[in-house]
C-alpha cells in the first residue's frame, strides 16, 4: 500500500485526472464559451448585429407573438433582451408536446425574420448536459465537478512545492516544462479553479444529493422549491379559459421594482387559463446572488401577488455561489477574466493529461493509445467547437431544422477528429490536428467580418489568438522522424 500521505494524494490526483480529464476538458471549454452566451448568440444571428432592444418592449412583442402562435403551451419561458442581447430568447411547447427554443425579433416578436440557430445556448446546455438525456448528462457533469474539486485539492498536496517556486517557468525542458506549466497555470488562479469547480457542483446539488430534500419533505419534495424561492411557483391551472391582461404595464411595474438590476427572465404559466401566472425574475446588475428577487403577478388581472427578496443567510450564500458560477453579474472586464481563467483551467487539464503520458513513457510504458486520444480530445474539441461557428455561416439560412444540423456538425467534426487521431501515430496526429485547427479558427475569424461590433471583434480576436497558439505549438514540435523518444 502507498506509504505516505503525499504519495497517496498524488496517486489519487493522477487517477482522478486521467479518468475525468477528457470529459472535464469538454465541460470546461464549453463553460468558458458560455461566459459569452448572449454574445455568441448575437454572432450567430448576423441579422441582429448592431441592433438594440428595450427589454420590456421586446418582451411585450414576444408575448404578443406567442399569444397568437403558441397559446396552448403550458408555459412560455422568456429570457429578456438587454444591453448584451438585442433579442428575446423564448422556450415554449408545441401542440405535439415538443419543446422549441428560438431567438425572437425584438420589434416584431417573431422568430422567422432571423435564422434558426441555438447560438450560445448550445455551449451553455452542453456544459452541464453533455448532449445526454436527462438526468444522466447532469449527473455526469455534477460528478465531474466534484472530481475536479478532488483533483485540485489533491493536486495542492501532490505539487505542494509550487507555492514557493511558481515564479520561474523553465521552458524547453520536456517533462520539467510541462510540470512547470501545469503548476503555474494551476496555482496562479487556484481560487478561480476551486470556486468554479465547487460552485459548479452546487448548481447541480439537488440532483446529486436529493436525500436531504426527501428527508425534510417526506412525500412532497416539490415543496422544497416553493420554500427555496416562494414567489417562483405558479398557481395550478383553473381549467377554465381566460385572457391574459395587457403585459406592458405589468412588465413596467416589474422593471420599476427591479430598478438597476433589470428584468432577467419572464415566465408565463398557463397563458390561456383563468388562473394564469406571470413570474418576473430580477437580474444581477448590482449583486452576485442568482435569482434572489422574484415577482409573481396574477396573469388575468395584472395584480402583484408576491414580491420576494432573498435574505436568509444560508440560502443567500448558496445563491451567491450559484451567481459566482454563472457570472451574470460580471461587468465586461470581469467577464473577460472569467473567460481567460476558464481557458487557463482547460490548459491545466490538458497539460496534466500530457504530463502523465510523458511520465509513463519515460518509465518505459506504452502510452500510444492514450496519447492518440489526448490529441483527439485536446486538439479535437476546439476544432469541433470552431466547426459549430463555421456551420452557422455555411449552412443555408432557410434549411429546415437548421439549428439541429448545426449541432450535428459539432459531433460529426468531433467524431472525425477522434477517428483521425486514433488512426494516425500520436506524433503525427498532434501535428495533423493542430494543422487543422488553424484554418478552422482562421475561418471563424474571417466569418466575423465586417469586424465592426465588439462581438465580431472579440470573436475574431479570440479565434486568431487560439490559431496563433496552435501555430506556435506546431512550430515548436519537431517532425516525428527527429523525435528523441
Amino acid at each position, binding site marked *: 500500500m502507498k506509504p505516505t500521505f503525499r504519495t*497517496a*494524494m498524488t496517486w489519487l490526483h493522477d487517477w482522478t485526472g486521467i479518468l475525468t480529464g477528457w470529459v472535464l476538458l469538454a465541460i470546461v471549454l464549453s463553460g468558458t464559451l458560455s461566459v459569452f452566451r448572449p454574445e455568441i448568440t448575437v454572432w450567430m444571428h448576423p441579422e441582429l448585429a448592431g441592433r438594440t432592444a428595450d427589454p420590456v418592449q421586446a418582451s411585450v412583442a414576444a408575448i404578443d407573438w406567442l399569444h397568437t402562435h403558441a397559446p396552448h403551451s403550458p408555459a412560455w419561458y422568456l429570457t429578456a433582451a438587454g444591453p448584451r442581447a438585442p433579442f428575446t430568447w423564448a422556450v415554449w411547447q408545441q401542440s405535439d408536446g415538443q419543446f422549441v427554443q428560438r431567438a425572437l425579433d425584438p420589434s416584431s416578436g417573431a422568430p422567422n425574420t432571423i435564422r434558426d440557430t441555438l447560438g450560445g445556448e448550445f455551449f451553455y446546455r452542453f456544459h452541464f448536459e453533455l448532449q445526454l438525456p436527462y438526468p444522466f448528462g447532469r449527473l455526469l457533469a455534477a460528478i465531474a465537478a*466534484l472530481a475536479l474539486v478532488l483533483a485540485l*485539492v489533491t493536486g495542492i498536496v501532490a505539487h505542494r512545492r509550487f507555492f514557493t517556486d511558481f515564479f520561474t517557468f523553465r521552458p524547453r525542458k520536456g517533462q520539467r516544462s510541462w510540470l512547470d506549466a501545469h503548476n503555474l497555470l494551476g496555482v496562479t488562479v487556484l481560487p478561480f479553479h476551486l470556486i468554479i469547480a465547487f460552485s459548479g457542483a452546487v448548481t447541480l446539488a439537488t440532483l446529486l*444529493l436529493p436525500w*436531504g430534500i426527501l428527508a425534510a419533505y417526506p412525500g412532497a419534495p416539490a415543496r422544497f422549491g416553493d420554500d427555496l424561492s416562494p414567489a417562483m411557483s405558479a398557481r395550478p391551472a383553473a381549467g377554465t379559459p381566460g385572457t391574459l391582461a395587457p403585459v406592458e404595464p405589468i412588465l413596467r411595474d416589474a422593471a420599476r421594482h427591479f430598478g438597476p438590476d433589470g428584468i432577467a427572465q419572464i415566465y408565463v404559466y398557463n397563458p390561456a387559463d383563468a388562473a394564469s401566472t406571470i413570474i418576473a425574475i430580477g437580474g444581477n446588475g448590482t449583486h452576485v446572488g442568482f435569482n434572489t428577487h422574484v415577482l409573481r403577478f396574477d396573469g388575468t388581472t395584472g395584480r402583484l401577488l408576491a414580491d420576494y427578496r432573498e435574505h*436568509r443567510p444560508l*440560502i443567500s450564500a448558496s445563491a451567491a455561489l450559484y451567481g459566482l458560477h454563472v457570472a451574470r453579474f460580471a461587468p465586461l472586464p470581469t467577464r473577460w477574466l472569467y473567460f481567460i481563467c476558464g481557458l487557463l483551467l482547460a490548459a491545466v487539464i490538458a497539460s496534466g493529461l500530457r504530463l502523465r503520458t510523458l511520465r509513463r513513457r519515460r518509465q518505459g510504458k506504452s502510452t500510444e493509445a492514450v496519447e492518440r486520444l489526448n490529441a483527439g480530445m485536446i486538439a479535437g474539441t476546439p476544432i469541433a467547437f470552431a466547426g459549430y461557428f463555421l456551420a452557422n455561416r455555411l449552412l443555408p439560412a432557410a434549411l429546415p431544422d437548421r439549428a439541429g444540423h448545426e449541432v450535428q456538425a459539432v459531433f460529426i467534426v468531433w467524431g472525425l477528429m477522434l477517428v483521425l487521431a486514433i488512426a494516425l501515430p500520436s506524433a503525427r496526429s498532434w501535428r495533423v490536428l493542430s494543422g487543422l485547427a488553424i484554418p478552422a479558427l482562421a475561418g471563424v475569424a474571417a466569418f466575423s467580418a465586417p469586424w465592426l461590433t465588439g462581438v465580431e471583434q472579440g470573436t475574431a480576436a479570440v479565434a486568431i489568438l487560439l490559431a496563433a497558439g496552435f501555430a506556435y505549438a506546431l512550430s515548436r514540435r519537431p517532425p516525428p522522424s527527429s523525435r528523441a523518444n
Partner: protein
Amino acid sequence: MRMGMILRVAVAIVGGYAVAALAGIALSRCLPWSRAENVTAGMLAGLLLWPAMVMTGFALRTLLHVCAAITGIAALLAALALLGGWRP
C-alpha cells in the same frame, strides 16, 4: 495489491457518497433553522464531504482503517438523523 486498491476505490467512492447523503439527511432534520435552509446546508455539507471522504479513503494506512472510519462517521450521522426523527 491490485484487489486492495480496487476495494479501496469502491469503499472511498460509495462510502463517501453514503456519508454525504447521510450528512444531508441529518442536517436537514437536526439544524434549528427553516426547512429550506437546513436542506441547503445539508446539501452544501454533502458536496464538501464526498471529496473529503474519498481523500480520507486514500490517506489512511490500511483498508480496515478506511472501512472503520467511514462506517463510524456514517453511523454517527445516521444516529443523528434518527434522533432528528428521520425514518428510512
